[in-house]
């Protein structure tokens, strides 16, 4: 077995860890200076036992995003394989950053629903405004539909807007895989030598996995250390798979992410010095999906991102149960809050989730190598 790529990956890992540790104090200072912190007045969950979380800087995910981007752009020169993962991560991270900042500094947005828009269309005097209202009805309808299944948001980027932008990131990835990586990526591999040729149908599959995984990580980022620690296991698994399969561009990229995440999680464990924010969770969720797809392990994403998938499914099931049957399935969703309400403390939930995630990543690696 060729250990040279592994040694190279470890250099990236160690390098990015050191780099992230070195500039983490600068980031913390920056976040405090510009008051990019969680605000109790906007977040009703920051009361009682969670009161101490108010005032903690958010957007700490920048530590990972920036470190990975800089190291990859400067040192990992296999651009054919790295520029799209980094680019799509950047798009998702920018979206997350905008959401984080608007959540802190934005004003409450007043949104009209379809009924209101139709009334405006009827009563407005100017023809071009009538036309504008008519043209925007499908979009507002889409928003109303999405809001039925999501929480009500007053500020920040709305769910339907996020979905559109995430679709953009997914589409870029799908284009890259379909057009640039070659015909072998149009076939989905199964463990134990199975495969299925999808052709162009791979495009919606990729878009789905990118959007779903990004949102899954976003949903799971609700406790100190949870997303960070779970992502370490996920990217470590991808590093091993890419090394064993000889993907010399992806092993260093995944290792770089692991290194940066180690530094991030060091500062993020309870009590967190800073929190990931959407900038990190959406960016890293997107990268997780893309890197697994690039290794042609699309169907194993639920193993590498097991905890994130469990968390997002808990939200989906809870919403369906609430809307359809009027009852709770869990005491609260995402699932980590269910256990919190059952009386588990935050550390217990996080560590058990880490262990489960590590185990499932090992299963994923085993399946990937079969």
């Amino acid at each position, binding site marked *: 077995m060729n250990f040279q790529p592994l040694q190279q990956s470890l250099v990236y890992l160690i390098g990015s860890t050191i780099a992230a540790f070195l500039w983490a104090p600068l980031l913390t200072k920056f976040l405090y200076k510009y008051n990019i912190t969680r605000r109790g007045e906007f977040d009703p969950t920051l*009361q*009682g036992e969670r009161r101490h979380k108010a005032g903690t800087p958010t957007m700490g995910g920048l530590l990972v995003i920036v470190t990975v981007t800089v190291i990859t752009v400067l040192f990992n020169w296999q651009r054919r394989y790295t520029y799209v993962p980094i680019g799509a991560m950047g798009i998702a991270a920018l979206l997350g950053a905008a959401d984080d900042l608007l959540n802190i500094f934005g004003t409450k947005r007043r949104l009209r629903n379809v009924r209101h828009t139709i009334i405006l269309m009827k009563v407005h005097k100017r023809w071009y405004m009538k036309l504008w209202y008519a043209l925007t009805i499908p979009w507002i309808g889409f928003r109303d539909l999405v809001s039925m299944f999501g929480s009500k948001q007053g500020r920040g980027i709305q769910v339907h807007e996020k979905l559109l932008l995430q679709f953009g990131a997914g589409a870029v990835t799908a284009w890259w895989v379909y057009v640039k990586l070659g015909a072998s990526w149009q076939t989905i591999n199964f463990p134990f030598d199975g495969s299925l040729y999808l052709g162009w149908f791979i495009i919606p599959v990729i878009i789905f996995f990118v959007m779903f995984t990004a949102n899954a990580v976003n949903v799971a980022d609700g406790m100190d250390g949870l997303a960070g620690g779970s992502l370490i296991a996920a990217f470590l698994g991808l590093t091993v798979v890419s090394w064993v399969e000889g993907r010399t561009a992806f092993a260093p990229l995944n290792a770089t992410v692991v290194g940066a995440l180690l530094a991030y999680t060091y500062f993020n464990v309870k009590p967190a010095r800073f929190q990931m924010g959407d900038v990190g969770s959406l960016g890293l969720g997107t990268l997780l999906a893309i890197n697994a797809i690039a290794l042609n392990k699309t169907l194993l994403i639920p193993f590498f991102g097991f905890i994130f998938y469990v968390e997002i499914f808990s939200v989906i099931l809870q919403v369906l149960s609430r809307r*359809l049957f009027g009852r709770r399935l869990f005491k609260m969703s995402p699932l980590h809050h269910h256990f919190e309400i059952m*009386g588990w403390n935050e550390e217990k939930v996080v560590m058990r989730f880490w262990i489960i995630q590590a185990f499932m990543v090992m299963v994923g690696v085993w399946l990937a190598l079969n």
Partner: protein
Amino acid sequence: MLSPKAEQVIHDYLNLPFKGIPGARAPYFNNARQRERGQLRVLVGKGTPQEIVEEAKIISIQYHAGLFDKQGDCCLHNAHTGKPVTPDDLRRFLIDHSLGIECSGFVTQVLRAHYRETKGFDFVKKITATPRAEIVRRLIAWLRPVENINVATYANDENSTLVRGYEEIKPGDLVIMLKTGPRQEHDHILLITDVQGKTIHYAQARAWSREGKYDHGVARGTISITHPTESLLKQDWQELGYNGDGNETYIEAKQANTLCIKRLRLNT
């Protein structure tokens, strides 16, 4: 008498099962003002006593730590004032967070327990909540039967028949008031829980105006048949020590466009 399990449900509404602090009566809550759609049934005034307690715990832990400890045990202390929590504090908490029960929700939950115990079926699945032609509404009613049963459902002749004589009244019958209130814009329902001689015992979820913001809720009362040949309004209505025009349930009965006693066809 209603079945023991149905009586237990009424008891639980009158003494919500908060661990360690008995005597918190379920407040009245009607979703008509807030018009929540597709919400948890406990948040639209249709929940069981257990669901009300569970939701109170979740809301307390999520937003207002101190009312419950982390195991969900109630009221060991009040973190805000340092004083022991009383049933009134609990009721205030419930009312401030739109938790409670409305009249038809109360009747449905009690009758559900009654029919399950006495007849072995879930009566909400056998009741016609919407016209047969409305497929979507029927699907919703099938998925969420309790939320789709209201006073009009009970009053519907497909579901119930008139009880014509006082001597025929039996537990499980319903006193229905349609188009009542000062503006005659809402309906109300009482559940007959027992009949002892010429006294009819009922239970209901209601809000009397004299009780203000925090004193309303589930209550019991009686109607004594003092004039057997005359209408319900000529009888003696007693509740919480009030009768005649002092009894707001009686006032509501007087204001109703339609006042009748009905029996579910399932109960015949």
